[in-house]
């Protein structure tokens, strides 16, 4: 079972759990319709598209309503700490959840009580918490963008807002150094998918794949284009692909969907997701 955990921007939603259902434009979990916008909703929607394409079960989801106060995030942490062994997911993807290092440590510890430790994927603030808490080595996959890669490379930073200025000024030409520094500091998951103008897959500290075509710089502006990659990676792994192959398929599908949708800086993530089924059919 592929379990995705994150927040939705509805303060009073509490915890919303169940199988995700995406019909091409609307995302539902239980009786609730979730707006398909940037964040975990986009991630889940893209994962549903891949699941449908691969003819596997849609992902299970635990959403917490949280607009930033952290109350929903803490509900979600508590639920996972109490229930993960019973849920026993094969793949656990942690996404937009307020970073609380102590609680992330407990979630990581409790995965050891599952009958088999799940494949652990972290993106967004869950990746921030995992790195800051010194838990990167417990994770199989991180999916940072370039600024988040700079954060992973900064030994002291506990959030990308506090990375050293010299690292932020570094551009893509320095990615080798960022990877080397992050790997040396044990801030890297086993596989790291760096999303950017040039996508990189890094395994055990070594770049094993790069992708820069089709060249669509406007994708960086579109909120959610990193989320869709993370969701697709998880879903392809659930369908049986290796972590490496899943990452390649997700990176290619994302760029090709942007091209198919004729993306501009004004394009919304729902339009990119709507194009993913078309491009998957040609992969």
């Amino acid at each position, binding site marked *: 079972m592929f379990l995705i955990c994150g927040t939705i921007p509805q303060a009073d939603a509490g915890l919303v759990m169940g199988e995700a259902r995406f019909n091409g434009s609307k995302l539902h979990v239980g009786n609730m319709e979730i707006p398909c916008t940037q964040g975990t909703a986009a991630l889940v929607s893209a994962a549903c598209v891949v699941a449908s394409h691969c003819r596997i079960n849609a992902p299970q989801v635990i959403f917490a309503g949280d*607009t930033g106060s*952290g109350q929903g995030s803490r509900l979600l942490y508590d639920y996972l700490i109490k229930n993960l062994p019973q849920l026993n997911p094969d793949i656990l993807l942690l996404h937009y959840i307020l970073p609380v290092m102590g*609680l992330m440590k407990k979630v990581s510890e409790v995965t050891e009580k599952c009958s088999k430790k799940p494949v652990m994927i972290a993106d967004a603030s869950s990746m921030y918490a995992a790195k800051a808490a010194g838990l990167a080595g417990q994770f199989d996959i991180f999916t940072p963008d370039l600024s988040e890669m700079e954060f992973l490379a900064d030994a002291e930073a*506990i959030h990308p807002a*506090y*990375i050293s200025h010299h690292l932020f000024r570094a551009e893509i030409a320095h990615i080798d150094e960022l990877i080397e520094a992050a790997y040396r500091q044990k801030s890297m998951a086993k596989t790291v998918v760096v999303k950017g103008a040039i996508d990189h897959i890094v395994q055990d500290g070594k770049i094993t794949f790069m992708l820069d075509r089709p060249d669509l710089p406007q994708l960086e*502006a579109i909120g959610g284009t990193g989320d869709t990659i993370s969701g697709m990676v998880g879903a392809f792994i659930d369908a049986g692909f290796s972590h490496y192959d899943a990452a390649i398929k997700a990176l290619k599908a994302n760029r090709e969907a942007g091209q198919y949708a004729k993306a501009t800086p*004004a394009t919304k993530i729902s339009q990119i997701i709507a194009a993913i089924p078309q491009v998957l059919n040609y992969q």
Partner: protein
Amino acid sequence: MIFKRTKKQARFAGGGLVLFQSVEEAIAAEKVLWANNYDVKLVAPPPQLRKGCDLAVEFNIVEKAGVERLLRQKDKHFAEILPVKGAGELLDVVKVKYFADACMVKAGNMKLTFDKNTGVILNISGGGCPDIPYLHLSMVDKKITDVARPKDKGHTLCALMLDRAFVEALEIFRKETN
């Protein structure tokens, strides 16, 4: 009693310090933050960070925007808010990228893109904290001159980074339309 609030210790994140000129200010701020569901504790700041008194409030640095706003709203005076480790200042480097009719401003992990002609916010990308999807919904497709600053509605460091991008974008838009 304030040192015995142990039931939330397991969930305490820390990483940020509010520094004060006096012990009374520190205690008053701690009470306000605690009453508003922030996980905080009174600590002695490291000597190199000490500003006034030898008591500080430690909190989850990710929640800096919300903590700072609440203390100001409640008129609780403080000297400074700093991370315990790493760079003392928020990243203040901003990068700007132009597309045909759009301009993308990047501050740290946050990017805000607006229409150069109309000022409409076209997209917000990057970030990872839970207030970003909320800010995205409340800002996108609205004119940049008509929306509240992210730091006035957000709670986290991602919101503060988005605020930096927003301020720069607003300045660029005003310059280009004047």
